[in-house]
């Protein structure tokens, strides 16, 4: 019951975000959307994911959205044409995805392929091999340490990229000043 309420609210929030002209309202609604998503993930017994969604989706993303709004404008430009083609593309994709879910195993089905591969090993042996009560941490940090290593590197690289894009001004300025100084010395 509560799941249906949450999912309805999620869909409603998404629709309002699409309709909203004010970008400020859209940013705040995106935060609400993330909180609803986090609540739903918590109901699916995934507290780690819910935690991440609440802190990143509702917290940091909203702050970054607002910071971007301060740089640009608060109102969306009115669109001249009715976007029928995008609507059709979205509807067809959505229908295809819903059609694909009919082939998926039922939620929580123990015979589902994902529960037959490596999951039984993790559940049986985490306690003796890793000795960490939280299995999610054991899998993320130890069994799949390579993945997490890659993710950390991706975060680092992404931040370096953003620094070059947004902080590029300062770097160019410094470079130009150094060049000016160099040409003066030559004169």
């Amino acid at each position, binding site marked *: 019951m509560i799941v249906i309420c949450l999912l309805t609210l999620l869909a409603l929030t998404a629709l309002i975000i699409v309709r909203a002209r004010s970008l400020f309202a859209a940013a705040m609604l995106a935060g609400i959307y993330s909180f609803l998503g986090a609540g739903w993930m918590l109901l699916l017994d995934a507290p780690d994911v819910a935690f*991440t969604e609440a802190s990143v989706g509702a917290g940091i993303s909203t702050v970054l959205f607002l*910071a971007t709004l301060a740089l640009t404008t608060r109102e969306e430009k009115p669109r001249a044409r009715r976007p029928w083609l995008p609507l059709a593309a979205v509807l067809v994709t959505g229908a295809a995805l819903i059609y694909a879910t009919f082939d998926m195993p039922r939620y929580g089905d123990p015979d589902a392929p994902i529960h037959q591969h490596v999951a039984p090993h993790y559940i049986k042996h985490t306690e003796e*091999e*890793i*000795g960490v009560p939280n299995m999610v941490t054991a899998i993320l940090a130890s069994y799949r340490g390579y993945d997490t290593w890659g993710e950390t590197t991706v975060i680092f690289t992404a931040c370096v990229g953003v620094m070059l894009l*947004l902080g590029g*001004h300062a770097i160019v300025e410094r470079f130009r000043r150094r060049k000016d100084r160099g040409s003066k010395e030559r004169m």
Partner: protein
Amino acid sequence: MISHVIPRVLSKILIPLIMLFALYVQFHGDFGPGGGFQAGVIFAAGFILYSLIFGLPKARMVFRPRVLQVMMALGVFLYGSVGLAAILKGGNFLDYSVLRHNAVHGQELGIMLVELGVGITVCSVMATLFFLFTERRRREDV
């Protein structure tokens, strides 16, 4: 924002609690939900709240951008060096079992250090992103 009494007083109470909670999430990640990534984000959120209330110049004095840049790389370095330490001890890359006399203790130590590396990197990356966005506005105002 510093002229508004209620946000200022409330945030003074909240910021230490947020940061303490981040440390709890970081080091309690082995037992409860959470881990380095979430802890880093929460720590950065406390810091962002500080700079929203007390202004960017003060926040920059607390967290210098230079230090943040070094910390960003330091977290990745810590993660990688745990992996290399495992190789030097005769195991595979990121195989923590060989880090200490007993496999389980080695795993615990390895997971703790690796999560700490993730936490340091994520926290400084989030704070740097916030700085980059807000700094840009200040520069264009001038």
